[in-house]
């Protein structure tokens, strides 16, 4: 593989990681207007559960992935029931949902993060998984990073296809565009709404599980990931599954090429610069509808 291809691949892989981080929030915020700023905390919970299973129970993290998804989904339903249902029921419009969910999610952030401190302590944690490298056309990449990238690609495309082509996916989109309209065609929004929220939490958990294979974890790891997620979904266009993937990949590429052409020190400057420029040119993100 040529040098440029390798650089691009490196950027794409990192971008895939960004996309995975953002997928869950894209469902919750992009589609449902629930500004779940505690997204990163649920990601952290997924990471810890996976680490726990791996180190205590010696369960293969990949095998454990569906379990994490299920556990977090149930947790998501519970959180929705306790915290967000009252908001969704009483709020007059999307702006109110957004503002009030932001505050509630702040509370959740405090609670979840500190429960993690109590349960797992503040220490950095991690385990070795798929750390061997894979050679692709002469270039080598960590297998665990490739796995995350593969998941990002597959999950984004699956989500995109589901939202676009299946009736269920259309129902989800319909519910967000007009809840009343959705109810009047017989969609049970009282079931679907929490389910989508739960799916968002589950995706956050899965992202955390995948990240725990690559990066070290700690209870305070969530906030930077929430920020990354917010940037990726706004860059891509809120609610767009394709935009989420494209936004993540674009950031990854900008970083890789930026690092090469300028200096790694400018990496953050470049990614924020690109983010701001894109939004100035396209105020509703790359894939605005």
């Amino acid at each position, binding site marked *: 593989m040529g040098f440029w291809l390798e650089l691009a691949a490196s950027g794409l892989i990192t971008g895939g990681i960004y996309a995975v981080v953002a997928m869950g929030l894209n469902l919750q*915020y992009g589609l449902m207007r629930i*500004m779940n*700023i505690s997204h990163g905390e649920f990601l952290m919970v997924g990471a810890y559960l996976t680490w726990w299973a791996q180190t205590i129970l010696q369960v293969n993290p990949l095998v454990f992935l569906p379990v994490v998804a299920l556990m977090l989904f149930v947790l998501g339903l519970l959180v929705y029931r306790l*915290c967000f249902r*009252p*908001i969704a029921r*009483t709020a007059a419009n999307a*702006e109110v949902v*957004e*503002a*009030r969910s*932001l*505050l*509630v999610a*702040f*509370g*959740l*952030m*405090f*609670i979840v*993060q*500190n*429960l993690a*401190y*109590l349960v797992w302590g503040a220490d950095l944690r991690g385990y070795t998984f798929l750390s061997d490298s894979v050679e692709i056309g002469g270039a080598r990449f960590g297998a665990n990073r490739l796995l995350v990238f593969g998941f990002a690609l597959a999950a984004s495309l699956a989500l995109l296809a589901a939202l676009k082509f299946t009736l269920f996916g259309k129902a989800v989109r319909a519910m967000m565009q007009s809840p009343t309209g959705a109810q009047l065609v017989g969609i049970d929004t009282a079931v679907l709404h929490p389910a989508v929220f739960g799916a968002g939490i589950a995706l956050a958990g899965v992202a955390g599980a995948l990240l725990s294979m690559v990066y070290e974890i700690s209870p305070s790891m969530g*906030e930077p990931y929430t*920020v990354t997620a*917010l*940037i990726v979904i*706004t860059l891509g266009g*809120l609610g767009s599954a394709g935009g989420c993937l494209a936004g993540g990949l674009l950031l990854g590429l900008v970083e890789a090429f930026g690092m090469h052409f300028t200096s790694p*020190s*400018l990496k*953050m*400057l470049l990614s*924020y*610069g690109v*983010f*701001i420029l894109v*939004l*100035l040119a396209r*105020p*509703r*993100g790359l894939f605005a509808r």
Partner: protein
Amino acid sequence: MTMSGFRERPSRVTIAALATGVLALAVAPWVLNEFLLSLALTCLMYAGLAVSWAMFSGATNYLSLATAAFFGIGAYVTALGYESLTYPVSVFLGGLAASAFAAIVGVAILHLRGAYFAVLTFGLGELVRHAITFVEKKYSGTVGRVLTETPEAATVYLTVLVVALAAVAVCVAVRSSRFGLALAGIGADEQRAQTLGVNTRLVKIGGFALSAFFAGALGAAMAVRWTYIDPPAVFNPFIGFQTVLIAMVGGAQTVAGPLVASIVFSLLTELLRLQFPYLFLIILGTLLILLVLYLPGGIASLWTRKRAGKRDG
């Protein structure tokens, strides 16, 4: 006549109570011990931040996360001008620098709405942080500045008090002015406000810059407490988040709401932190959620609701 406020003016009793409060705050350095003074300082800092945030964002519904950026810019002005400027001057210049920054970026970004605006303003803070890191490293070979001789605690306190009071006073004045009416109109329906003759662009830029002034001045004033100033410390996004949190919990459409919330929130956090060292954030989070669910209008709805009740009765 047409210049009279569009909101109720404070009664005489309120004014008297306020005057007493201000007097009490002003003598605090000679009454309180260092810790209580510093607690009061934290309350004042968040009061100034939250009230000035609400002045723009509460009125216009433009959720800005740029507070951390303004605060950091102010702090950096203190850091850079530390040797050549007196403290009050650097506080004022810190405010001006943040204000100028807000005006310049405001021209570019104030056409964005909702989440896009919020995330972009957050991104701006990060952009400035990394830009300062880069430039500072390039020209001085290191990052961060050490402030060796800092003003007395009482001086810092009184300065922050003045800035916070100025923020409240300006916010009250703005609300009863045409400018404030224009901001409120933009929040309610921007296009409608424009079709009624408001130059919405100019008003937004002005409001954004004015609110940035106080965040910048507070950053400049607080920086001296930390001896060492580097970008990660002063561009702490949490300062911005907490400001938004306080203003919204208080009721961002009011002045008194964020003011009361900043005091309640700071004192409550401190009390819980000291009493329940391992559980305080869980308690705080739970209280926050309960508050949002059972008092959706924010703390301010406690008294605005009462007033509405009086009107009905």
